[in-house]
């Protein structure tokens, strides 16, 4: 009796979740993919391989991969400092981490342009360079790895580390053999989130990158210009390409994670 009620509850939950996901995610995504095929696969392929679209796509994927890697390392270090170190201003820092999420990305772009543009008070001018694209993406994706790693690190059993020490492991060995393997799943999923967020980024890059086609124009901006020139099928094709890359990235990281957890 109780069993079937539990199973029924699960079925209802599953139904609601699927309906919700369909309405919010699956159907819109399917519509994009469907739209991209309006003029057939040949047109699709031509749309994503026009020189400007291709340049935008490769720049976006390359910059996003780089940013994801930087996040992987820096995000983990920041999470570590926030959890393990005690210093004045720690809780302030902890709050600040989320601000990139709260700031409209166009404002972020404006601030970055003011700080690292031609009038930079720091004397660093990155305006209209690819470095500026990377910088903008780093800014908006900062919280992902920090916020996925932090709770895992908080929950990590300190006695595991002490056991490792009493078994003869030095601090570095303990980190590599005990702490890191326990953090890797969170690090990877944070990285995946940062990567997928970065390839779709629009607002923050618009101002500081200058949108120079073939040089600093990112895919989302390219898509926008396609829509403006009434080429919605082309825009859908580039979007679909981005979706495919994101999907591959998510699946790769998932496989890596499973493989890692099996190997231990």
């Amino acid at each position: 009796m109780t069993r079937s009620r539990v199973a029924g509850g699960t079925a209802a939950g599953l139904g609601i979740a699927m309906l919700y996901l369909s309405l919010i995610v699956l159907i819109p995504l399917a519509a994009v993919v469907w739209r991209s095929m309006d003029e057939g696969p040949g047109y699709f392929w031509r749309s994503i391989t026009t020189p400007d679209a291709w340049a935008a796509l490769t720049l976006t994927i390359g910059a996003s991969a780089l940013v994801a890697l930087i996040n992987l390392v820096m995000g983990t270090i920041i999470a570590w400092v926030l959890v393990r170190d005690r210093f004045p201003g720690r809780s302030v820092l902890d709050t600040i981490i989320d601000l990139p999420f709260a700031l409209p990305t166009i404002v972020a772009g404006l601030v970055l342009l003011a700080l690292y543009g031609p009038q930079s008070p720091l004397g660093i001018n990155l305006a209209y360079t690819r470095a500026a694209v990377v910088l903008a993406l780093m800014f908006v994706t900062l919280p992902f790895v920090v916020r996925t790693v932090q709770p895992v690190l908080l929950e990590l059993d300190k006695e595991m580390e002490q056991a490792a020490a009493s078994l003869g492991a030095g601090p570095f060995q303990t980190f590599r053999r005990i702490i890191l393997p326990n953090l890797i799943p969170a690090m990877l999923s944070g990285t995946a989130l940062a990567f997928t967020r970065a390839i779709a980024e629009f607002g923050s890059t618009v101002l500081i990158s200058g949108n120079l086609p073939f040089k600093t124009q990112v895919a989302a901006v390219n898509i926008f210009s396609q829509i403006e020139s009434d080429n919605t099928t082309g825009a859908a094709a580039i979007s679909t390409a981005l979706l495919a890359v994101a999907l591959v990235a998510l699946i790769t990281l998932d496989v890596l994670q499973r493989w890692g957890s099996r190997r231990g």
Partner: protein
Amino acid sequence: MAIEVRDVNKSFGATPVLRDVSIDVAAGSLTALLGPSGGGKSTLLRVIAGLEQPDTGTVLISGVDATRLAPQRRNVGFVFQHYAAFKHLTVFRNVAFGLEIRKRPKAEIRKRVMELLELVHLEKLADRYPSQLSGGQRQRMALARALAVEPQVLLLDEPFGALDAQVRKELRTWLRRLHDEVHVTTVFVTHDQEEAIEVADEIVVLAGGEVVQTGTPGEVYDNPANPFVMRFLGPVTEIGGNLVRPHDIEISQDPVEGGSPAVVSRVVRLGFEVRVEVEIGGHEAWVQVTRDQADRLGIGPGDTVHVRPVPGARSLALAV
């Protein structure tokens, strides 16, 4: 001496947790650190292992001053109350950990780990992850892991604390047998006096951060240093202003020399033993007798009897 702790003091903030603690642990012995919760047992064990630094005092391990030595250099096996299993490693790799750190050859590691797993009866579960083990199995894995590096001393913090009574009893006897086989100097923490008496060669009673008494289980049970220890180590009752073990009291129906008249208030049969509750001059006491004795006396509630400590009974005067 395998372990010598000298005048160790340790405070957390303003609260002193260990006060002038000194203990000696003989090589090859099995010593119990016994005491009430919050008495500082874990802290003392962690000071010995180097997981906690004493404020003052010294710790010698095998005659070498280890006070400032990092835990990884002490060659001390530590088993945590909650196992501290490496969740991401299999049972085999958990046990192999210390040997891998020491860069022993693969074949040697394999052989030693399998030996240990056999010793703790986990050889069939070598490929499982800790989450797939029961509490008792995890505990034995933690023990094998600590033994793998052939520590000079083995420290166990409430090794059976988180297990149910049945498994506890089994592991207790098993630990004793294991110790007789492996002979590594072992200190284990417990707040269960029965466990300490049954398993240990030597008991150190720690309360309020101070060593109250040390001795063999017999000594501590029979000659407790103070009423606290006497109460902590076994059942007690009070007659004539003295603390006495309830099995050290005799009951008779006729007046006896040195006896006090008492009124039986309740007779509780607990299987083999019978608990006779009496009232002596307005305050309550109880006597433990066997079923045979109770039958022979044939007493019931309301009867007047005479009680006195048996000749040679250990008793402690209570300061009023």
